[in-house]
């Protein structure tokens, strides 16, 4: 379980997170939703240990995050940032192999090769393994970066807007692959509420730097809660057995 306890964060005199406390259970997909500027990405960065909060504490499976060294943290949490650093001349396999870096530190062992092969297979990247990452489409590239996180074999995968700029085909593809990961907890920032409604098991709603509400998806993605969260009338509809969030 991830436990965020009374976290405050400000930058340049602006409060970004205020007295944030929440618990995220292990297992499934956890969506962080909320309006633009609510503090979703900042919350994810604090949980990832990339940003030191002004006060408060984050524990992961009972361990204080900031007491863990960088390497120990990298074996618990994998994090996909919004803007991926483009390293030229990198093949898809090389990229996925970097996910193993916290384990091999530059010298790959047999178990690393096995984990890389598993990640390539699970994200259907075997045929693209030798392709230069720069020659892939946006969707394929994002899938490769998610596979890199997966190869890190951490119990927690944190993904900051992994679906940004992806078309519906790649969006569905990535979400279905994430849904199939039984042994991981995927914590991701989402803007598409219909995606959250269909794939998330647990939802964290953030508004104005505070936690608005937290709970199982069916309790959270309701017309009333979403309308209150976004200050715009929203409605949950059923279309062909799938949930869709639409404006009223």
């Amino acid at each position, binding site marked *: 379980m991830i436990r965020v306890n009374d976290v405050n964060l400000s930058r340049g005199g602006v409060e970004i997170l205020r007295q944030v406390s929440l618990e995220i259970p292990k297992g499934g997909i956890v969506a962080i939703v909320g309006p633009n500027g609510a503090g979703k990405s900042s919350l994810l960065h604090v949980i*990832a*240990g*990339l940003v030191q909060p002004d006060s408060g504490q984050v524990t992961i499976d009972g361990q204080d995050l900031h007491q863990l*060294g*960088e*390497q*120990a*943290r*990298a*074996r618990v*949490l*994998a*994090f996909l*940032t919004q803007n*991926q*650093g483009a*390293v*030229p*001349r*990198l093949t898809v396999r*090389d990229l996925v192999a*970097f*996910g193993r*870096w*916290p384990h091999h*530190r*530059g*010298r790959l062992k047999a178990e690393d090769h096995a984990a890389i092969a598993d990640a390539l297979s699970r994200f259907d990247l075997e045929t693209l393994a030798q392709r230069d990452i720069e020659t892939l489409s946006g969707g394929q590239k994002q899938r490769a970066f998610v596979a890199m996180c997966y190869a*890190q074999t951490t119990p927690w995968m944190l993904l900051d807007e992994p679906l940004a700029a992806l078309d519906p085909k790649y969006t569905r593809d990535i979400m279905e692959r994430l849904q199939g990961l039984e042994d991981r907890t995927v914590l991701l920032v989402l803007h598409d509420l219909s995606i959250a409604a269909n794939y998330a098991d647990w939802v964290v709603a953030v508004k104005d730097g505070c936690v608005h509400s937290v709970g199982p998806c069916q309790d959270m993605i309701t017309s009333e809660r979403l309308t209150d969260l976004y200050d715009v009338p929203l409605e949950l509809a059923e279309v062909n057995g799938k949930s869709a969030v639409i404006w009223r």
Partner: protein
Amino acid sequence: MAERRLFILGALLVVASGMFLFWNLRGPTWFILNLRAEKLVTLVVVGASAGAATVVFQTIATNRLLTPGVVGFDALFVFVQTMLVLILGSSAFLDLPAMAKFGVETALLTLFAVGLFGILFRKGAGDIIRMILTGVIIGTLLRALAGFAQRLLDPSEFAVLQQATIASFNVIDDELIGIVSISLFVAFGLCLGIARKLDVVAFGRDKARTLGLGYDRFILIALSIVSLMVAVSTALVGPVVFLGLIAASLAHAWLKDHRHLVLIPGAALIGAVILVVGQTTFERVFAFQSSLAIVVEFVGGLLFLILVLRRPS
């Protein structure tokens, strides 16, 4: 493929070194060979350290345009030389024991460089425009201070200073070659030692940290190695701002590999080949009618301009 190309570069350096040593060898053979061997060692270590240091620097900056020179290192060298001439006077400056002068210059340059790079990288290397501008402003400030101090010098002191601030591969103090070679060899070994971590640094600060790299401490170590390499070679021959840029750009373009275990030796070999071939050409073909450093700066400056103009907005 990259390893084979690395081997080709190594072979090219051996051939170039052979030509430098034995082409047009007349007169007292051993005496001339000894002189040429000393110069060859200087050319190889200076070229290699410029190439290797620039690859490391560019990876830290996550930018292929930057070199230690572009962000003000040459201005720092001129400033230090000017201050030494101003404070000591030209005759005391010239009379300084070579080893002591080299030691002081290297120490000052390393210290300044670590400080300068520390300022530039303090808020991360993400904002490249801020980095270049800060480097240019610091460089301009140092040049202005050096310019002001130069006005206080008399013409003979100024002539001595001018001689000391232009890179030259022709007159190298043989007393220094041993210590310089050992220092740069050790620094080069350290570069190779951190090569695997540099592969991760290439992803940027956040990704490197989430992959378990103690980023800030590592960057300080890497910058110290870069500073030492640039300081040692600059103190030996003077500032060659764009040599590293040429070597690093060619290494990336020709080796087509992301691994620093390949890129660092590749850029080092290219830097050494450029200087050895260039010096051979100037000495044997043009009979010292021009300066290699000036041509390297001219070609490197043009390359820098092309890279800036071709950079996607």
